[in-house]
């Protein structure tokens, strides 16, 4: 088989190692095309349309009595919808200026004019267990996994959780219906 060491001297015609514009253009077009072709393969990993369809859930509030809490499945996670009693609301507002690991006023955690309705993602911000209401030292939620205490506004008071229980994006479609997500 022929030896091709140091072959460039035998080339006749155009020296291919000179960076012609046309070659740069071709390589650039190939690169651009490859990236464009790659995009659908990346995008397909985003949630598909049927998953997105279940991204929002509408909930009828008339089923929840004062002092009662309903847990619904939202985006695969538990969601707390709580109808707070005036006592719970007062307790939450009173602690607005207490030393809080994640400071937040109670008013920021509910819709204006509707302090009794608290909508929270029921997933402890430590490692994701589901807290239960009524345990703990602050009258709110308590997470049994590692002992995080939340108050009646869902704010973290004591324990390893770093942040307050998450308030998801939601809106009132009417006084009795709320759309979450």
């Amino acid at each position, binding site marked *: *088989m*022929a*030896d*091709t*060491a*140091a*072959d460039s001297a*035998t*080339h006749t015609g155009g020296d*291919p190692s000179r960076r012609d514009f046309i*070659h740069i253009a*071709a390589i650039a077009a*190939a690169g651009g095309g490859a990236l464009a072709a790659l995009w*659908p*393969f990346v*995008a*397909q*990993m*985003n949630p*598909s*349309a*049927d*998953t997105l369809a279940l991204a929002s859930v509408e909930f009828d509030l008339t089923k929840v009595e004062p002092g009662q809490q309903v847990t619904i499945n939202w985006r695969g996670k538990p969601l707390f919808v709580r109808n707070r009693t005036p006592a719970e609301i007062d307790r939450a507002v009173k602690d607005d200026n207490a030393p809080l690991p994640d400071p937040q006023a109670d008013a920021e955690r509910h819709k204006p004019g509707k302090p009794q309705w608290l909508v929270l993602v029921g997933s402890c911000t430590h490692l994701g267990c589901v807290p239960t209401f009524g345990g703990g030292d602050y009258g709110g939620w308590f997470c049994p996994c590692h002992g995080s205490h939340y108050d009646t506004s869902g704010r973290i008071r004591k324990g390893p959780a770093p942040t307050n229980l998450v308030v998801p994006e939601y809106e009132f479609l009417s006084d009795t219906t709320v759309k979450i997500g």
Partner: protein
Amino acid sequence: MSGHSTYQPKTGFTRWLDTRLPILRLGHDSFIDYPTPRNLNYWYTFGAILSVMLVVQLISGIVLAMHYTPTATEAFASVEHIMRDVNYGWLIRYVHANGASMFFIAVYIHMLKSLYYGSYKAPREVLWILGCVIYLLMMATAFMGYVLPWGQMSFHGAVVITNLLGAFPIVGETITTMLWGGYAVDNPTLQRFFSLHYLFPFMIAGVVALHIWALHVTGQNNPTGVDPKSKADTLPFTPYATVKDGFGIALFMIMYAFFVFYLPNALGHADNYIPANPLVTPAHIVPEWYFLPFYAILRAVPDKLLGVIAMFASIGVLFVLPWLDRSKVRSMRYRPMAKLYFLVFVVVCVILGFCGAKLPDDQVIPGLQTISLGGSDLNSWVWLSRVATLYYFAYFVVILPVLGLIEKPLPVPDTIATPALSHPAAAPAEAVAAPEQKG
């Protein structure tokens, strides 16, 4: 081509890497500085096209597997979920389904090229056999892949082909039962086909690596069939072959894109959009187009077992081709008689493809008087299949060996670079394609 390497690592990192794992050296020697015959024509770009198609099928397949459910109750609906709900799912699905057809178009052209230019002859026998292995693996992969959507054709095609294997005496029933995982094609069959369909392409990739290795040991064949004798006969792979292959790939992509975007279901069968029903057989079970010639050969033989053997033998004969064709001249450019028989062979393959799509007892030329022979009308597709099958086998087993002995070839040029002799009178016709698609 085991000549010494010309790779010179330039940076500290590349020098460091080169002494520990000379992978950049391997890449350089195989695809940059690799001496390629300068006279390769466009038929030779299909190897690169095939590599690209393998990567396309692998990536699209792996992505589809993220969304597909391989159970009998969910498979059909999951494919529709991909088509409707998954972002760009419709695109990836059509890319994968049409990609299989494109893969076969390319492989048939690639194989026919090798038959014509004698690329299976010494010293490339192992290269050719590895290619035949790749082809077999492709057929298995494609067959199992077609079962996955669990449409009527998927299901009943699986029934027919798995039942065929039951034709073998003694082991037949065991093989079929183990393939089925039960008493018939059902959920266990689908699940194991999915697993194997995911596995086989990686085996194909491995054999492709061996195939390219074997190629680089002997060097490429070329249209004259004459080995490169000096540096004047070759050019470095990059940029010469790279850019030519790139152009070939781009042209191929135009055809591919045309099918994906404008005729996405043309190469398939409408019946496969009917969910599988074990109790209802489609009026007309047809495999995918790339299997049609073999289906025709199978049905040409009236006996079930002999038909199966004939079908497998039609691929098996390829494996021993290097020892059947004894001609000293590689390229059919210089073998006018062989060239003629080769063209007839290509036409016969196309005819076999048509026969495979038809009902065996339908008339070829409608309306003619029936002449019965051996239980079927002479003017029927089954008889045409028989004649075509006879030629198919005769080409390998009779014609090529005999031609190797008696043929008077044209004078073969001394070297590739000899301009006067490397383009005999038929040269302009090199660019005009004979029907190259098999099936």
